[in-house]
């Protein structure tokens, strides 16, 4: 009998084991849903998969009278727009500010404590301020995402800049590099993989802020829809929407990982 940590599953077994929890959750839902529907055919809490499919096709393929849109796609478009704008602005701010503040000692002495304090402000607590300042439109939602994510990305980029060995920076100077060349030729390329990673880690938080903002005020969006139909206990909308959001988040994460691997092959070699 070896220690338990010394038993490792083979590749095939690993795939089966990984699929097991997913299958189990689906099976439990199916059994429970069937049991409830057998007692009360109009049960709203745990609809059958057929109901999900019917609702989803209705939302995706028929034009809604009130908004004159395909609701499912319209919601997706609105949410993704907010998410991408927020994430993009955060990533850009994180990259520029993180590199400048992390690399230039005077800027670092000035702004590092400020960013540290700034990142501790709970973004949802200042949401009312954002609504007051920017109105109830798109701007306040995007500012909320930036407010919530940019400080984290800035600090992460700063840490990465600080972790570049001093030897490399000295070496660059002995090769005649000026500050701009060190930023563009040494710091920026080494920070980029980390930036992509921290955007990946921020995806969850970004979705949180999108949905929170949409729940409070919006004309459409995945989060808006979920909170709207909650009044009617419309689990046949809510559950597919949650699954769709999860799938979108997973695809983004996967895409970013592939992007990092394709654009920065040296980073993976180092990790190996």
């Amino acid at each position: 009998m070896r220690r338990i940590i010394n038993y490792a599953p083979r590749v095939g077994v690993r795939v089966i084991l990984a699929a097991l929890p997913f299958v189990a959750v689906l099976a439990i839902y199916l059994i429970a849903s069937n049991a409830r529907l057998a007692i009360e055919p109009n049960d709203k809490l745990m609809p059958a998969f057929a109901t999900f499919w019917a609702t989803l096709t209705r939302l995706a393929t028929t034009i809604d009278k009130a908004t004159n849109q395909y609701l499912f796609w319209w919601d997706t478009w609105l949410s993704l727009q907010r998410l991408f704008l927020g994430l993009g602005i955060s990533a850009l701010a994180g990259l520029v500010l993180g590199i400048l503040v992390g690399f230039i000692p005077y800027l670092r002495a000035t702004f590092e404590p400020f960013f540290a304090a700034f990142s501790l402000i709970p973004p949802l607590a200042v949401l009312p301020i954002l609504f007051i300042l920017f109105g109830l439109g798109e701007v306040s939602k995007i500012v909320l995402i930036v407010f919530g994510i940019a400080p984290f990305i800035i600090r992460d980029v700063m840490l990465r800049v600080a972790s570049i060995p001093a030897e490399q920076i000295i070496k660059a100077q002995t090769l005649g590099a000026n500050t701009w060349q060190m930023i563009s030729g040494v710091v920026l390329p080494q920070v980029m993989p980390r930036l992509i990673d921290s955007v990946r880690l921020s995806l969850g938080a970004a979705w949180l802020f999108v949905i929170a903002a949409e729940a409070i005020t919006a004309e459409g969006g995945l989060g808006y829809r979920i909170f709207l139909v909650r009044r009617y206990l419309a689990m046949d909308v809510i559950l597919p929407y949650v699954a769709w959001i999860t799938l979108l988040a997973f695809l983004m994460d996967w895409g970013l990982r592939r992007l990092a691997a394709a654009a920065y092959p040296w980073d993976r070699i180092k990790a190996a």
Partner: protein
Amino acid sequence: MTTIILDNVWKEYEDRVVLERVNLALDDHEFLVIIGPSGVGKTTLLRLLLSQEQPSRGRILIDGEPIASEPTADRGVVFQRYSVFPHRTVLGNVMLGPQWAGAPILGRFFGARRRELESRAMALLERVGLADSARKYPAQLSGGMQQRLALAQALIMKPKVLLLDEPFGALDPGTRKSMHQLVRELWEENAMTIVMVTHDLSEAFLLGTRVIAVDRPRNDPQAPERFGATIASDFEAKFRSVRDSRRFEAEREKLRLTLVSADSTQNSLPGGISPVRALVKD
């Protein structure tokens, strides 16, 4: 011609004295090796030469001029680790310096200039034995190969002084031996001054033309930070005459090789080259 003068150099951190009264005059084309126990300030001395740190008293002159207060291209460096850029290929690493010097905004050459630099870099990589790995990333190289790359990267800038901070410290004995050979040859070929820090005595006397030992001559057991280290001994490891004769030998060898190759191309005598070789050898 490169001469280095350290004029009464001190280095103090607040109340701790690391180096005191360091005086040194270094001739052109010397191979200076700094030895001494760990933590005594060998590397600090090298950092002062590199302008990574400033002396708190005294001054450092290269060719009679005070050195710049920040690292510049006239002093190349190879550290024990991390002296190459992990995000550039081997060739890209070697090409960095000239591109930075020649293209201030983009840091990149195009067209004929790039091809010219590429062939120069490839020649240098050939010289240090890395031509086959030109497209690899540093992380794919062994420790010794990375140090060869760091050397090539520094040498393409043709520095007046090459500073080596325990460059072979992390290498296995076999690799170290071949690196000794390489550094020695590069020093001869490029006619530059090398300053190397090491804690390996045999390495110091094998490579150096001059070896200085850095140590604390005075020590206060109650306050070890009161006194700093200075040059405790100064050896001329290879006499000037020996070195000059070595240089003479090297030049004669080069001459012989050109004569031999010229001869073998121009008139291919059957059984060929032996008369000329015999002639030059004596």
